């Protein structure tokens, strides 16, 4: 029981921290990706479309 308790405690710490950090980076840099998608989808865009 001791091993599993410490194992899951370490897991939740890693998972929670990773979740928060990645969410922060994605929230900031995703805006550029969104802008790029709009540019590419605009009629007459030079971006290759599917």
């Amino acid at each position, binding site marked *: *029981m001791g091993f*599993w308790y410490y194992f899951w405690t370490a897991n939740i710490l890693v998972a929670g921290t990773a*979740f928060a950090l990645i969410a922060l980076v994605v*929230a900031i840099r995703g805006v550029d*990706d969104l802008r790029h998608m709009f540019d590419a*989808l605009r009629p007459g865009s030079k971006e290759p479309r*599917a």
Partner: protein
Amino acid sequence: MNFTLIDWAIVIAYLAVTMAAGLKGRKYVLGLSDFLVAGRQLRPHLGIATLAATEIGTITFMYYAELGYKTGFASFVNGLIAGGVMIFLGCTGFMIHKLRETGIMTVPEYFERRYSRRLRVLTGVLVATGGILNMGVFLRVEGTFLTIIAGLPLDYLKITMTVILLLELIYTVLGGMVSVVITDFIQFVMLSIGTILITIYAVYTVGWTPMHDAVARTMGAAGFDPFLNPEYGAGYILFQILLWLSVDTCWQTTAMRTFSTKDPETSKKVFFWTGFIFLGRGMMPMLWGIAALAYFGGGQNSLEAMPQMIARILPSGVLGLVVAGMLAATMSVNSSYLLGWSSVIAQDIIAPARRKPLSPRAQVVVNRLTNLFVSLFVLFWGVWYTLPGPVWFYLNMTGTIFLAGAFAAFVAGFFWKRANTTGGYCAMIFGALGSVAFFFFNVPTSYAGLGSFILAGAGMVIGSLLFRKNDHASAPARQGPHGTQRQLRA
């Protein structure tokens, strides 16, 4: 009523922004590939946001919290497998690289390219059946959460369900994948804030040691060790690894993100980083369930304990922010699922059945109509169907109706030259048998689920070896963006 004026103001402001952003997507939809895969313009950060938002809903929080409440820290094994498998796929590119290279838009489309048109239709029927039954309980569970947390009487459940559905339906029908991606991004930010806030408040209010003590007292070692817990064990863990490999590659809503990325390398990056989010997506709500167990001391309805705890521990203002986050999670999942399953009906059941191909404009109209059909079904199923047990196991087994067979057919299609159409039929039909055993003969999830994957694999091998001459369509998958795009885009 738990909501104050400030909470309502936050929720209404969020809804207004989401609807406006969702409707903005409409003007970018010029053809079917824009409607279904956003013109394949997703870059890594947006890909992560939309994939995470699609697979993180209030339903996710509810079923994982229920597992935490019922099985303690041992439930974390589910989150570890979900995240670990995704990180593995992101590192290796196993399957997802090849899937993106094929240039397809729906999962069953691959079956026509590799096997036959009829197998595509059968797969489409199984995918739509499994997917829509799976989604069928979302509104009820999500409505329960929102009703409890807002402090509304449960009589308002049906109204809550209908309002949620109508809001997401409007922008999904009009703007398709473009609208879904835009709203997913906003919803990802909101649901991340909500998830982190609830975790902090739950740990701060309940305390870490009381959580450990509550699990130890009510479950003993089985609350920590997944191999000792009667709900899990080695068979269940193996089933979950196979299930997540198949979900990440064959689940229509996840696969649509793979298909929507700019190129295969972007797909790998998206999967790798989203894998870490999936660790938290699983473990944090399970922790809320454990916190609810410690907070109430047991004896609650396992599904309702977590929202009841949240409604009591969050202060005004924070509650509104969290509900906006949960509403975001709800809408992002439902809109993507609506689009995903209705696209399968339109593209893989209706379109192949027609002798004369539909024009691109007509295809978008058919997709919008199937959106409406799926919405109505989900609303009625949510009202009338009673769950046979924990939500998570129901979702596992409805998904397995097609996942086991589709995964076997995908793997064999990509990596085994002898795989043929007969093998594909056997895999799809045998793979669905486990779900039949679960729903009609009460076979436990681990046996039924693992059995589905074993039967599907065996069906593919035996069918392909016994009927080798039936091999007209078993050339390696045709690569590249030809055929489908030529047919589908004007």
